[in-house]
C-alpha cells in the first residue's frame, strides 16, 4: 500500500507519559475494558485501533477522566500521569483536563466567535493577564492548528460558521491553547473530507514535537501515517501494542493480523 508510509524517523525511546496498569472499566454490568496495561510515551503519536465497540474510545476517555461524567461508568486499576495516579481521591479532574486536552469525533466549537472559542481555556485557567497576552495565545494556537491564515480576518465570526475541517482545526486550536502535555483525539477525522483529513494529519505530526498525542482512529492507513506506536484493541482487550511499523508489517497476534488485513472488524 502506497499510503502506508511509516514514520521511520524515531530515534530514541521517550519516557512514559502515561502508565496504565490493569485498568478495568465497567459500564454498569458491562465489562468494557479488561486488564489493560500500557505505557504511552512522551512526544509520540500513539494510535488506538480496533473494531467498533472494542473499548478504544472508552480507554481514551479514561486518560482525562471524561468518563467521570457518565454515572454508571466505573474505572479500576491505576493510570499514572508522570508517575501520579490520576484517579487518586485528591486529584481534581478539572486540573487534570487542563494538562490533558481532548479533541472529539464531531467538531464541537462553542456557539461563540472564533476568538472566544480559542480564548476560553486560557481565560478560565487565568493564563493571560492582559488582552495582548490573550491575543498572542489565540494567534499562536490558531497558527499551530494551521487555521490562522483562514481565520485571522474573521476572528469575531461565529466558530460554528466555519466548514467542517476548519471547525475541527478550531477545536484543535482550542485544545492546544491551554498548553496541555497530552492531546487526546477521538477519531478527529471521521467527519472530515480527505483534504481536511490530510491537513489535520500534518498538524498531528507537527504537534508531536511538543505534546504526547493519543489518537483513536478507524482508518488503519491513518494510524500508519501519523503514529509511531499503535495499540490494537479487540472486545475490551489490548491485544497488541508496539511500534507502528512492527504492528502493521509483522503482527504477532493472529487477531491483529486478521484486523489489519480486513478479515475482522
Amino acid at each position, binding site marked *: 500500500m502506497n499510503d502506508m508510509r511509516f514514520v521511520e524517523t524515531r530515534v530514541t525511546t521517550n519516557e512514559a507519559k502515561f502508565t496504565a496498569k490493569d485498568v478495568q472499566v465497567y459500564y454498569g454490568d458491562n465489562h468494557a475494558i479488561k486488564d489493560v496495561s500500557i505505557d504511552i510515551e512522551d512526544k509520540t503519536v500513539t494510535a488506538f485501533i480496533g473494531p467498533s465497540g472494542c473499548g478504544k474510545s472508552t480507554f481514551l476517555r479514561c486518560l482525562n477522566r471524561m468518563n467521570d*461524567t457518565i454515572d454508571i461508568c466505573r474505572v479500576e486499576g491505576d493510570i499514572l500521569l508522570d508517575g501520579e495516579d490520576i484517579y487518586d481521591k485528591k486529584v481534581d479532574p478539572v*486540573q487534570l*483536563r487542563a494538562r490533558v486536552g481532548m479533541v472529539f469525533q464531531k467538531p464541537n466549537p462553542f456557539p461563540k466567535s472564533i476568538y472566544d472559542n480559542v480564548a*476560553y481555556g486560557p481565560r478560565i485557567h487565568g493564563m493571560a493577564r492582559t488582552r495582548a497576552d490573550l491575543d498572542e495565545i489565540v494567534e499562536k494556537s490558531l497558527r499551530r492548528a494551521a487555521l490562522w491564515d483562514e481565520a485571522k480576518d474573521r476572528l469575531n465570526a461565529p466558530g460554528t460558521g466555519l466548514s467542517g475541517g476548519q471547525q475541527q482545526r478550531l477545536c484543535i486550536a482550542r485544545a492546544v491553547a491551554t498548553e496541555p502535555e497530552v492531546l487526546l483525539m477521538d477519531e478527529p477525522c471521521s467527519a472530515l473530507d480527505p483534504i481536511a483529513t490530510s491537513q489535520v494529519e500534518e498538524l498531528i505530526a507537527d504537534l508531536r514535537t511538543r505534546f504526547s498525542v493519543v489518537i483513536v482512529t478507524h482508518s488503519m492507513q491513518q494510524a500508519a501515517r501519523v503514529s509511531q506506536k499503535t495499540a490494537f484493541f479487540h472486545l475490551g482487550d489490548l491485544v497488541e501494542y508496539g511500534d507502528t511499523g512492527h504492528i502493521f508489517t509483522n503482527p504477532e497476534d493472529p487477531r491483529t493480523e486478521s484486523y489489519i488485513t480486513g478479515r475482522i472488524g
Partner: protein
Amino acid sequence: MTDTNASRTAPKASLLTIDSHTKRRQAAEKRFRVYGIVAIVIGMLFLAVLAVSIIRSGLPAFTKTIVEVEFTLTQDEFDAAEKQLFKTKAYAGYFNAALLTKLREQGLDVEVDAKAIERILGKTGGTIREFYRANTEQIGQPVAFKLAAASRVDGYFKGRVSRDTLQDSRFMQLSDLDLVDALYSAGIIRQVFNWTFITGADSGVDNPGGAGIGASVVGSFFMMLVVLGLSLPIGVAASIYLEEFAPQNRITDFIEVNISNLAAVPSIVYGILGLSIFIQVMHLPQSAPLVGGLVLTLMTLPRIIIPARAALKAVPPSIRDAALGVGASKVQTVFHHVLPLATPGILTGLIIGLGQALGETAPLLLIGMVGFVARGYPDGFIAGFTDPNSAMPAQIYTWAARADVGFYEKAWGGIIILLIFLLTMNILAVILRRKFERRW
C-alpha cells in the same frame, strides 16, 4: 423461453397511469389534509367568536355617560345655601336651574322636575357642595360640572336598557328617557372615555359606574413581582441542579415524578395549602398580594421547572464535552455554555408560567384576595405587598357574580385588560426567544 423473458413481455405499468394502490394512498393523504384544514378552521372560528364577543361585551366598559353643565355659583347663593337646613337640596336646586336654562337656550321645551333629574343623575347636590367647600376660590367663576349619569341612563346609551325593559321599573320612568333624549340632543349628556375603569378601585354593589380595575391591576402586579422574584431563582436553580448535578438515584427519581405530578395538581389545592399554612400557621395577613404571590409561586414552580429542564436537556452534550475537555469545571461548563444556550427555552417556560399565574383565580378566592377593595387606594401603594388587595381575575369573578347588570360589561372589560397583559407577556416571550436564540 425462460421466466425472465416471460416477465419482460408482460405489460409493464406505465408511470403515467395511476394504479389502484396509489389512488387509495393519494385519497388518504388528501383526506388527512382536509381534516387538518377543517380542524384549523374550526379552531380559528372559535377564536374569532371569542374575540368578537369579548370585545363587543367589554368595550362599553371603557366609556361612561356624563352630564356636563357649566354654571356659576355666586357668593350670595353659596352663603344662602349654607344657611339652610337641607343644604345639598339647595345646591341641587341651583344645578337644576342651570340645567333648565341651558335646555331653554337650546330651544328645547321639556318638563324638568327635580325628581327626574335625581333619577338620571343621582343626588347631585352633595357633589356640588363638596366641590365648592373644597374650592371656595371657584365661587363666582364658571365651572363645568361633569357628573356621571345613573347606571340605567348609561345602559340606555349602550343598548342595555330600552323603553321596553323600563316598563315597570321602580327606578326610572319612561318620561325620564324623553328628558335624556332631549339632554342628548342639546349636547349636555354625552359619552366619554372611562378613565375610572382603568385607574379606579372597585365600587359598591350599587354603583357599577364607579368601578375600576386599577387597584386589582396593582394587586396582580405585586403578586407577579413575588412570583417572579421567587420562582425564577428557585425554579432555575432546581432545574439546573436536577439536570446537571444530581446523581441518578431513587431520591431524584422520586423528586422528578413528584414535580411532574405537582404540575397537574388543580390550583385550588394550592389555595387550600396557602390558607392553612401561610395564613393559619404563619399568620401572614389575609388578602395580601404577598400571600397570593407565595401560593402562585408554589403553583408555578413545577410549571417552570419542567420546561427549564427540557431546555437544559436540549443543549447538545458535545458542548458539555467541549467545555470539560478544555478543563472547565462542571459549574463553569453550566454557567458559561449550557445555561446561555438554554436561556430562550427557560424564558419561554417562565413567561408562560407567569401568564398562567396571572390568570389564576381559584387559589385567590381561598386566601381572600377577592372582593371589594378601596381602602388605601391609590395612596397605599408602597405597602402594597401586605395590604389587602384583589387581583385582576378575582376582580372579574367578583363583578361577574354581582346582581346589577352594569357590572356585566365591567367583567368583560376586565377580561380585555387581562388579555392585553397576557398578550403582552406572550409577545415578550417570543421576542426574548428570538433575541437569545442561537444556533449550534
